[in-house]
């Protein structure tokens, strides 16, 4: 009798497991990696930062049958985390990061058309979508953007009696006057040529001199005359003592701290600087924004920075259509203005979809001016496969130039390395 009961219990256990498994089969779990943009990202996605709840909880409640295994990863670690997971054949389903060309060229990504609902696709700013197109295929969608402008300490400039510079010549003149007035106690100009974001400095100066990473045809033109002149100008600012003392090791955040402490008169920074200053308690600084100075006769250009959301292939998943649909639902929920507006404004970024603009502008009128800046901004050539090498190479060239390297030779070498010529 005992044996019979045991057998019955075992069968019941097996059947319940089977039932559980079949119920589990209807549930799809998406692995999602989100980059940590600021102190609130983690709380918004996983804590209580989204009206007392989290993005994951709200999404799962609104989309039964889809579970999110969402991880917030710092920018310092995300490239390593992703490449390690790819090496282990365990790529995430959805990834939020800045680069995409390497993943696309390796055949690891799903085209956006496979998973993005049409109405959502139409909502993205078209110029942003173009930044993720290689050939005829769009591989990622933008999640947010930021734009750069010149921030200047109004009190310092007023005290010295100078106007905010618009050209390079004016910049040198203003810098010299600040040095003379404060006897070198205040750095006139902030320069970041670190491995953190030195490529931005390359963009600020080369774009302000009619040069840039690529020529009009989109081919690499790293050693153009304009670029050589621009980088020589930037290095000249350091050599003349107009900048922070260690541009190779002082990051944008160091510069923002110096600016907040009143030690730095002018710095190029993102639209999120006001909230950075508020968070850090730099309340006594009277500052304003202006266009980034350009060489005489050249157009000033803002630098737009954009991050992306992309979906990885998983050929082992049995029902691809269902997986694509689940990824689409994630995107739809994320970009829904009811959720997205909170996300973008929380970390002080600029939106990537039209449907969020009206509400964001209503919340903060300064957004409109920044959206206009973004409209005229240039972006890094991230669609080109060599971009990752160009980014590192341009920073390396800057740092070599800082220690006395010849800019022409350095940029010639970089161009040769990238183009193989």
């Amino acid at each position, binding site marked *: 009798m005992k044996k019979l009961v045991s057998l019955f219990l075992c069968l019941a256990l097996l059947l319940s497991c089977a039932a559980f498994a079949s119920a589990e089969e209807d549930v799809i779990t998406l692995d999602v990696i989100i980059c940590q943009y600021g102190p609130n990202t983690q709380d918004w996605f996983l804590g209580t930062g989204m009206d007392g709840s989290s993005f994951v909880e709200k999404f799962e409640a609104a989309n039964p049958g889809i579970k999110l295994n969402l991880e917030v990863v710092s920018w310092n670690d995300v490239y390593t985390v992703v490449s390690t997971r790819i090496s282990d054949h365990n790529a995430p389903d959805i990834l939020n990061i800045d680069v995409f060309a*390497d993943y696309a060229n*390796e055949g*690891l990504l799903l085209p956006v058309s496979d998973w993005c609902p049409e109405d959502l696709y139409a909502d993205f700013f078209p110029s942003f979508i173009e930044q993720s197109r290689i050939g005829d295929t769009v591989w990622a969608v933008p999640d947010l953007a930021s734009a750069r402008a010149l921030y200047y300490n109004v009190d310092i400039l007023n005290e010295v009696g100078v106007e905010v510079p618009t050209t390079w010549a004016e910049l040198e003149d203003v810098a010299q006057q600040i040095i003379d007035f404060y006897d070198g106690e205040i750095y006139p100009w902030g320069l970041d040529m670190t491995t953190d974001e030195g490529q931005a400095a390359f963009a600020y100066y080369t774009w302000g001199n009619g040069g840039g990473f690529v020529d009009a045809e989109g081919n690499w033109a790293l050693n153009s005359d304009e670029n050589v002149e621009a980088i020589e100008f930037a290095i000249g600012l350091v050599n003349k003592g107009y900048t922070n003392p260690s541009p190779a*090791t002082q990051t944008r955040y160091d510069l923002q701290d110096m600016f907040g402490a009143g030690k730095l008169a002018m710095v190029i920074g993102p639209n999120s600087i006001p909230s950075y200053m508020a968070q850090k308690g730099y309340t006594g600084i009277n500052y304003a924004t202006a266009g980034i100075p350009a060489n005489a006769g050249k157009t000033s250009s803002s630098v737009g920075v954009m991050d992306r959301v992309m979906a990885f292939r998983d050929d082992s998943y049995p029902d691809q259509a269902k997986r694509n649909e689940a990824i689409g639902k994630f995107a739809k929920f994320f970009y829904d203005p009811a959720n997205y507006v909170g996300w973008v404004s929380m970390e002080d970024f600029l939106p990537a979809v039209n449907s969020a603009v009206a509400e964001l502008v209503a919340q903060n009128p300064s957004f409109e001016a920044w959206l206009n800046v973004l409209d005229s901004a240039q972006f890094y050539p991230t669609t080109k496969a060599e971009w*990752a090498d160009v980014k*590192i190479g341009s920073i390396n060239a800057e740092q070599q130039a800082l*220690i006395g390297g010849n800019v022409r030779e350095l940029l010639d070498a970089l161009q040769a390395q990238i183009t193989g010529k």
Partner: protein
Amino acid sequence: MDAIHYRRWWTPYLWLLPSVLLMLIFVVFPIGIVFRLSFSEISRAGVVGGFVGLDNFIAAVREAAFPTVMWNTLIWVVSVVGLSTLIGFVVALVLNSEFHGRKLARSIVVFPWATSLVVQASIWNYIIKAEYGNLNSLLLNTGLISHAVNWRSSYQVEFIWECGVGIFVTIPFVAFTVLAGLQSIDGAYYEAATVDGAGFWKKLRHVTLPLVRPSLTISTVLNIIYVFNSFPIIYTITKGAPAHKTDTMVTYLYMLAFYEQQKGPATAMSMIGFILLCVVAGLYMAATMRKEAQ
């Protein structure tokens, strides 16, 4: 009786098993993986391809920064290990002598060692900051300087600072290893030497040094390994900038792997470092052991 004998036979191995397993899982196995990867093609995105022979090693050695990095590594290891051993030895001698407040002095000396390296490096980074660093504040407030000094005026100076921080945090380790050795020396040797008319220097040379040599050997071999593999100081202060001029092998291979995403050459570089370390530490141990045997 047989059962007891049997148990005795495997008991030591049983006790060793956890540490052997730990070593296998966390040391030997990863070394094996890196060894395999160093002969494989690894794409920037992280896709591991096929066998490429010595390509990764050739690429690593041909990198423009390679000679600078090797030279820096040599300076870093020799200066930090050499000077910290010298100063640590002197500190140990002082701490071994009788004086008022010796216990307090011993606990103060151990502080730099008891603090995390990242914390130490970050603190030094703040101390030498030109804008609002403590060193400048101190010197300005005491009137020793009238203008803030840029303590990081060139990458050579920055590298010297890094070596200095390395020496500062390594001294306690040497001092305490040597101190342990000094305390085990029988006082009778010194008494005998005094009777024979030996002064301080003679006692140091003919009694202290030979008897403390085993402790010095241990501290030097461990130091070579620790200092060669030390990452936080350089990464926190300069991140190897500008253009790898302040990188040592470990920080360089980290940047190669996780910043430049050149995982193939980076794994090759870490194999080169591993072999180099085995050879140097092995040679040093062999040389000192031979001397001891003599």
